[in-house]
């Protein structure tokens, strides 16, 4: 009887109702949380003898990886990313990203190392260090090569259609793309990377790329705005397509993209302007969260092997940072003369140190793309 | 105020032939009703007069002008639609003023004429109400007002009462008659309800299935002298007896079974009918007398048993099964609370009627 009274009290009933509802909500929320946590579980589902590698597309050929898997029984999971910034974002989001090895560009290593995402490399376990050109070692982003070793290098230059420019390019200079009076064609392709574009502008203006002030950035911005009318497209991927389809006769591009097309089309050529250009280094780094050291070093030593590196370089027209491979690499895969380390032209390719903040770069880029 | 003439109209939708060589003449200034069962093509006739459909062949004349190829908006004919088709995004005033505004009358003129209409239909208070908010009867008034403000030669009404309830219908019918008298324009009223048509029309046409006219005439003519079984049975209720004709001493008899024959009036073509094996006769139930005791002075007499009694209030309907199996309906007025003679189930009764009150039908 008393029980009944207890339940029939309106206030109690209301209270119980709320409790039950909260209970239901809690049940569903816990289901949801469990579902989300599933994403962490996937990490434990991969086989023990496996490596997770993050890299750009077209850096290591799949056949090479298959061979490695066959030889050692270590499974390689490859994740491709499309920009260094995307990689960093991913790292910041999932702190314990299931990752062992990364092949990033040079400028991203410093922030990654600072944030503690990278592990120091044990030089004793690497058998390839002596083969790397000293020119690529000890650069400003990692002075003692504690975290990284270079594996490929490349530069920005001009790709063009020979049949359009019968006597070759009128000038071998960045003014072809920046100077209104000197542009050789109505429309051309330009890189769509703010850092690279700023560096090229600095080389054209012949400023010291190691220190830039706000005033100079303003001038670069107005240079870009001025340049816009004769730029057909800003792109990081389509340069080869633009040249071969004859959409634009002249494009600013990374060498490897153009050389890949040069192998198939005789009509194309690549050149590096006399003012010098940007050096891009691809490096190997190890994730701090990785615990698979043995396998990592086995893999590292494997990909630096002469044959393996040669295969990748020929497949994707990459330039190796390893001396014995580069010296043997046929000229057609290099696509440009006198560029090897030690030769005079090489002196004019420089790394762009991280002297600008991301915000400064953004401001320039957004401002000129808003016009 | 113009008459309408339809000549040799043929109309088909796809492979369905709705009308074939259809002819009809509608006199001017009259309330004309077009009555027929649903699906007989009466709405198609109306839509052709309005211009929504063009006839495949044949001509339509409004007065002396041929309007069969004239666009809808050029005809001086307006329609009151079945569900009124009031423009939902306009208020009452705008709905009524629509056609005047289309014709670009001066605003003051529009105001004056719409006000007049509103007053005439007694809906001044609804002037700025949305048409969605007003009742069915009010909507109907608005629809009629909208159609007649244009002062058309002919007003077409397509079953305008279908959406109203019984009680309202009777009142609106009377109002429609008054309206027609007041405006004097030709009204063409399409319906499948015979009481509406009989009440309202000066003249009416009955359409049968297959899209042809069965009979045209005043309500009285149609009711009292139907020319076909279809008309007789469609308009009001009737008893249809059949048999074959016999001529004896200049008198015409209808032999309905071996023992009974009925005296029938002569009509124009009785000689033709004499040859036919099956001839029909219509006798309205209210024109028949019923009695248990023999009566004198009637020209016809049959005997039957009562099979059903249905009490209607003002009258009682008796179903009498004749010897040959035919069932006749008889309406008796309930004139007295306590009739002298009560008729019950299974009573054997005499059925009497006068020869003149029956009609020989053409088929």
């Amino acid at each position, binding site marked *: 009887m008393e029980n009944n009274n207890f339940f029939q009290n309106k206030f109690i009933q209301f209270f119980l109702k709320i409790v039950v509802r909260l209970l239901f909500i809690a049940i569903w929320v816990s289901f949801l949380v469990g579902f989300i946590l599933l994403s962490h579980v996937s990490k434990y589902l991969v086989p023990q003898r496996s490596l997770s590698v993050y890299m750009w597309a077209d850096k290591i050929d799949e056949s090479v990886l298959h061979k490695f898997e066959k030889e050692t029984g270590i499974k390689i999971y490859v994740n491709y990313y499309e920009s260094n910034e995307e990689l960093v974002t991913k790292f910041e989001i999932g702190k314990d990203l*299931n990752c062992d090895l990364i092949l990033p560009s040079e400028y991203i290593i410093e922030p990654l190392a600072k944030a503690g995402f990278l592990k120091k490399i044990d030089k004793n376990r690497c058998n390839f260090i002596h083969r790397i050109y000293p020119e690529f070692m000890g650069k400003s982003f990692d002075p003692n090569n504690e975290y990284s070793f270079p594996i490929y290098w490349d530069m920005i230059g001009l790709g063009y259609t020979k049949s359009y420019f019968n006597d070759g390019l009128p000038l071998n200079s960045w003014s072809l793309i920046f100077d209104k009076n000197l542009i050789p064609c109505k429309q051309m392709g330009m890189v769509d990377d703010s850092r690279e574009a700023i560096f090229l502008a600095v080389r054209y203006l012949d400023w010291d790329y190691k220190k830039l002030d706000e005033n100079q950035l303003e001038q670069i911005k107005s240079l870009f705005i001025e340049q816009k009318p004769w730029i057909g497209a800003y792109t990081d991927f389509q340069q080869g397509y633009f040249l071969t389809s004859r959409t634009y006769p002249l494009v600013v591009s990374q060498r490897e993209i153009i050389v890949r097309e040069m192998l198939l089309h005789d009509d194309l050529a690549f050149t590096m302007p006399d003012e010098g250009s940007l050096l891009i280094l691809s490096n190997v780094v190890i994730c701090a969260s990785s615990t698979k050291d043995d396998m990592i070093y086995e893999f590292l030593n494997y990909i630096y092997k002469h044959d393996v590196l040669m295969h990748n370089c020929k497949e994707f027209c990459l330039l190796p940072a390893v001396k014995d491979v580069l010296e043997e690499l046929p000229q057609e895969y290099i696509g440009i003369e006198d560029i090897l380390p030690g030769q005079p032209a090489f002196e004019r390719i420089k790394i762009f140190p991280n002297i600008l903040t991301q915000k400064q770069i953004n401001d320039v880029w957004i401002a000129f793309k808003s016009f | 105020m113009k008459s309408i003439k339809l000549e040799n109209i043929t109309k088909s939708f796809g492979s369905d032939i709705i009308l074939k060589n259809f002819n009809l003449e509608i006199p001017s200034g009259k309330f004309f009703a077009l009555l027929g069962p649903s699906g007989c093509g009466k709405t198609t006739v109306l839509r052709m007069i309005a211009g929504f459909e063009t006839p495949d062949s044949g001509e339509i004349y409004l007065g002396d002008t041929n309007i069969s190829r004239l666009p809808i908006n050029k005809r001086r004919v307006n329609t009151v639609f079945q569900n009124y088709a009031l423009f939902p995004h306009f208020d009452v005033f705008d709905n009524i003023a629509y056609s005047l505004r289309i014709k670009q009358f001066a605003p003051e003129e529009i105001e004056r004429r719409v006000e007049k209409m509103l007053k005439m239909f007694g809906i001044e208070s609804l002037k700025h109400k949305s048409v969605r908010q007003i009742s069915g009867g009010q909507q109907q008034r608005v629809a009629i007002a909208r159609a007649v403000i244009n002062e058309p030669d002919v007003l077409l009404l397509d079953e305008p009462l279908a959406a109203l309830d019984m009680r309202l219908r009777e009142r609106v019918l009377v109002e429609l008659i008054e309206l027609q008298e007041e405006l004097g324009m030709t009204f063409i009223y399409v319906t499948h309800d015979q009481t509406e048509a009989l009440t309202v029309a000066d003249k009416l046409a009955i359409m049968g299935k297959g899209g042809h006219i069965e009979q045209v005439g005043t309500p009285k003519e149609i009711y009292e002298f139907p020319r076909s079984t279809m008309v007789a049975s469609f308009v009001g209720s009737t008893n249809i007896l059949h048999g074959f004709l016999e001529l004896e001493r200049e008198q015409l008899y209808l032999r309905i079974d071996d023992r009974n024959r009925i005296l029938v009036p002569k009509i124009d073509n009785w000689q033709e009918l004499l040859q036919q094996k099956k001839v029909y006769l219509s006798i309205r139930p209210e024109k028949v007398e019923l009695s248990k005791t023999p009566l004198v002075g009637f020209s016809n007499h049959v005997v039957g048993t009562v099979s059903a009694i249905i009490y209607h209030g003002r009258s009682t309907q008796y179903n009498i099964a004749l010897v040959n199996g035919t069932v006749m309906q008889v309406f008796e007025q309930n004139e007295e609370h306590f009739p002298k003679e009560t008729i019950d189930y299974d009573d054997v009764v005499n059925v009497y009627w006068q020869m003149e009150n029956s009609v020989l039908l053409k088929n």
Partner: protein
Amino acid sequence: MEFRLRKIALPLYVGIFCIFLYLPIMILMIYSFNRGGFPAQWQGLSFCWYYDLFHSVEIWRAFQNSICVALSAAFLSVTFGLMLVYGSKRLKTNISYFFYSNILVPDIVIAVGMLSLFSYFMVPLGLITLIIGHTLLGLGFTVPILKSRLDELDYRLVEASLDLGASTFYTFRYVVLPFLYPAILVSTLLVIIVSFDDFVISFFCAGSSAQTLSLYVFTMIRSGISPTVNALSTIMLLVSSFFILAISLLQARLAVRDGK
């Protein structure tokens, strides 16, 4: 004159419109059978690009991811949508209308919002986050469809069933569910298509860690023309047209069954 304008000009216009709508897709499909790599030069019939397509490991992986995400998202959004629609009908709340907004909020806002949310709670991006995003998108489609179907259900049927002593579950299973069945099928197919086609949410909430077919097409388009993309697009087109055809037929049958 006016009459002729509507009788001739309008159908002509609609015809041109249909050509505009379909021509690009048709050309794309035709050229996926072109032997040559360059567009617009017909060099003979060939299935080589399809051969290439079926031998690419990456495409298969992207395809598997897409299938996995689409099916999970369809299952989740239809289940949840069904529960919501039925529950809110019985509770007589209008909460369902709230889900109509999912289509109206720009994709990119949802995507960026989720990205920042996931990053704050450190949820690694991947298939799970993708499923979450697509389920949200899917709810915007399933809830309106299921709701409008449920509204057509004569509620007295449910009451009659309950009145005859059936339990809530039994009523749902044998009265409501059979009635909703076509709508459930339609919305499932729709969510699968939407999930397969979605780009923006996939791009932000998964990126490279779980590449879907859309993302794969995106990366391929970014580097220019490739006949393999033609072949892939053709297959995707045929599959989605098949699904849409199934949806249309279902709806047509539904209309017939309801005697409309």
